[in-house]
């Protein structure tokens, strides 16, 4: 366990640069520039910038990954001309969206129309500030990271509904209402499934949860919770088969019907941001996070940043599963979705909590081994 965190690295970086500058500056300047408050402030900025760029790159890569996978599922090639294998296609699309003008409907409420997508994106980006991505690479030592991440994650329906309401369009409104109903309905099973993990791991801290999985990953014993979590996550991410709020066939484009240009890019980007968060959460909670099983040769897990690489590999594999589901299943209807959510998912989630409790009681599984915090 190294003590370097992303924040400490950026602090050291800023400190070194400012010290170097300060050594050549005359008297009042060099004191001022090595002021600890300034270093801290700049370090936070650098930390944020690195995080933002990494997140954006990852999200765009995720879109590329989905396009390529979906293309093969559909017996076609996806983006392939801009950059190697179309890797830069999404940048091109993004630039196109960025230089389009924002056309606001005349009757739309300006404040809500503009702030909705922005808040939606910012709230989702916040989560990356607290997600641990490798050992020691968590940004702060919060004891309740999981809870905070899920709380911020569930802000989304509010912003979606604000955007939908303020764009003054019947389709947007219906999409927004569906979205709110759906997200609230699936928030409950999502949290209940998480509770199963928390019971076993004994902590709300994601780093701790990952370390509790060093003997075996939770997906095996907590398979039911995994199923519930993935299904609820699909609904939270609004992907097929649960993409009713933006069902193209009946609601045009759902709550973002009236958005174009950069604001639409915000929505689009944030959808994939949330997909990335969802996939990372699945990996952290059930698939051992950045750790690998002991039979994996040490050379494969000990190179620099190995934890981040393995976490990302797992994340992309989990996301591929989401894409696979999207490629093969039709969309369900609102009432069916809500009925499944309340009538099926919640009992299953409760059952998974019961199973988790059983697991805690028996402590050790014969084939898998024990959870560290529970002892042998």
């Amino acid at each position, binding site marked *: 366990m190294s003590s370097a965190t992303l924040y400490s690295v950026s602090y050291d970086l800023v400190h070194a640069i400012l010290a170097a500058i300060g050594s050549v500056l005359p008297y009042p300047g060099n004191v001022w520039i090595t002021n600890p408050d300034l270093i801290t402030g700049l370090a936070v900025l650098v930390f944020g910038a690195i995080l933002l760029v990494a997140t954006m790159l990852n999200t765009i890569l995720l879109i590329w990954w989905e396009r390529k996978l979906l293309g093969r599922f559909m017996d076609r090639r996806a983006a392939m001309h801009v950059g190697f294998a179309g890797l830069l296609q999404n940048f091109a699309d993004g630039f196109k969206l960025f230089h389009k003008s924002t056309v606001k409907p005349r009757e739309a409420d300006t404040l809500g129309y503009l702030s909705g997508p922005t808040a939606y994106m910012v709230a989702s980006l916040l989560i990356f500030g607290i997600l641990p991505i490798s050992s020691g690479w968590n940004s702060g030592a919060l004891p309740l990271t999981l809870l905070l991440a899920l709380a911020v994650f569930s802000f989304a329906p509010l912003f979606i509904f604000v955007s939908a309401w303020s764009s003054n369009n019947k389709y947007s409104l219906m999409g927004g209402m569906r979205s709110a109903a759906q997200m609230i309905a699936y928030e409950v099973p999502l949290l209940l499934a998480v509770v199963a993990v928390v019971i076993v791991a004994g902590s709300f801290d994601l780093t701790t949860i990952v370390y509790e999985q060093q003997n075996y990953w939770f997906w095996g014993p907590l398979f039911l919770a995994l199923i519930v979590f993935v299904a609820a996550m699909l609904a939270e991410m609004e992907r097929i088969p649960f993409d009713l709020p933006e069902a193209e066939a009946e609601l045009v484009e759902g709550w973002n019907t009236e958005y174009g240009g950069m604001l639409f890019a915000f929505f689009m980007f944030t959808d994939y941001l949330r997909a990335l968060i969802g996939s990372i959460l699945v990996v952290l909670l059930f698939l051992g996070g950045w750790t690998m099983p002991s039979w994996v040769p040490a050379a494969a897990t000990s190179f620099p940043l190995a934890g981040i690489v393995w976490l990302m590999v797992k994340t992309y594999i989990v996301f591929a599963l989401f894409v696979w589901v999207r490629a093969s299943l039709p*969309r369900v209807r609102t009432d069916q979705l809500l009925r499944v959510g309340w009538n099926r998912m919640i009992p299953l989630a409760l059952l998974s909590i019961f199973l988790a409790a059983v697991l805690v009681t028996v402590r050790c599984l014969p084939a898998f081994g024990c959870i560290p915090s529970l002892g042998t």
Partner: protein
Amino acid sequence: MSEMWINMGPQHPMTHGLWNLRVKIDGEVIVDVDPELGYLHRGIEKISEDRHYNEVVTLMDRTCYVAGLAWEHLYIIASEKALHIEPPERAEYLRVMCEEFQRLGSHIMWFSAFVVDIGLLTPLLYGMRDRDLVLDLFQSYTGARMTYEYMRVGGVRNDLPPGFTDRARTVLDWLMARFDEYDKLTLGSDIFHKRCDNLGILKANDCIAHGVTGPMLRSAGVKRDLRKDRPYAAYDRVEFDVAGADSADVTGRYLVRMEEMRQSVRILRQVLDWLDRNPGPVMARELPRWLGAPYAPVGREGYLLKRNYPKGVGFSSIEEPHGEAQAYIVNEGGEHPYRVKLKSPVFSNISAARQYLVGYRVADIPPIMGSVDVCIGESDR
């Protein structure tokens, strides 16, 4: 939310064409609907009155852009009756082949559009891919992929190119294997049944009263198929079964159309065998001069030669991919038809929209309208 009218169309992903479905909703429940047509009305019936019989064929391709050959067939049968011309037998078989390939193409196109309506994007591409094979076949003998201009009064434009029948059989084998794949993606999925069972129910009595025909009627248990009931061209000489279902819902229509595609393949195999065995002329021997294509229809200075050609009325009714299509052509002895009346099955099927939409939810509109197989080109004409 209280009751409100929303306009689904003319630019809406559900419409599959240029039309407007005005829906009155109470929350998510449909209270009333009012379809509006006419966005694609090009006056084909009027333009036909100003064109020579063979030139009207170019308009018929544009009538329904996914079933051009079926409409050519409809028009040609009626105008041959009006002009008292008998096509050779090989031409009749070729026309049956055209119509069945067109049915395959149209139904696959319908499948592609329908699965998107229920949110299934993958089979859309499968359907497009497989329809392209049918279009390739069309291109190889008509020369075009969408606007074929293949049939002529008195026969067809040209015979099949060498090697066509073998290639067509390969395509049919490929398609038959793909149909099973389609079924696995749709019928094999629980969500599909959740979405489509007991949806958009239109019972047989309502179908007949509102003039609904085609797969919608057959899915309600009425096995009316003009190819069987009132055989035209060479349909009395091929074997096939009429597809049918009892459920009268969206799933029933899906089953009927998939079964029809399989029956089309069955018909096509027989027709291809026949065509292999029986070479012959594809154009009638006795044609009025101005009907043969390679002639000047009029003299250079607008010099028109009026012949005392027998007058007549031609009526044809065929089982187009969407249902019962009819043409009524009045020949008053001139080069141009006096009146061409076309009846589109989609026109009647849309007109009954209130019967099968009211009471369902907004989310059900795309699958229901998708199962109707709307083609606005032919309903507006």
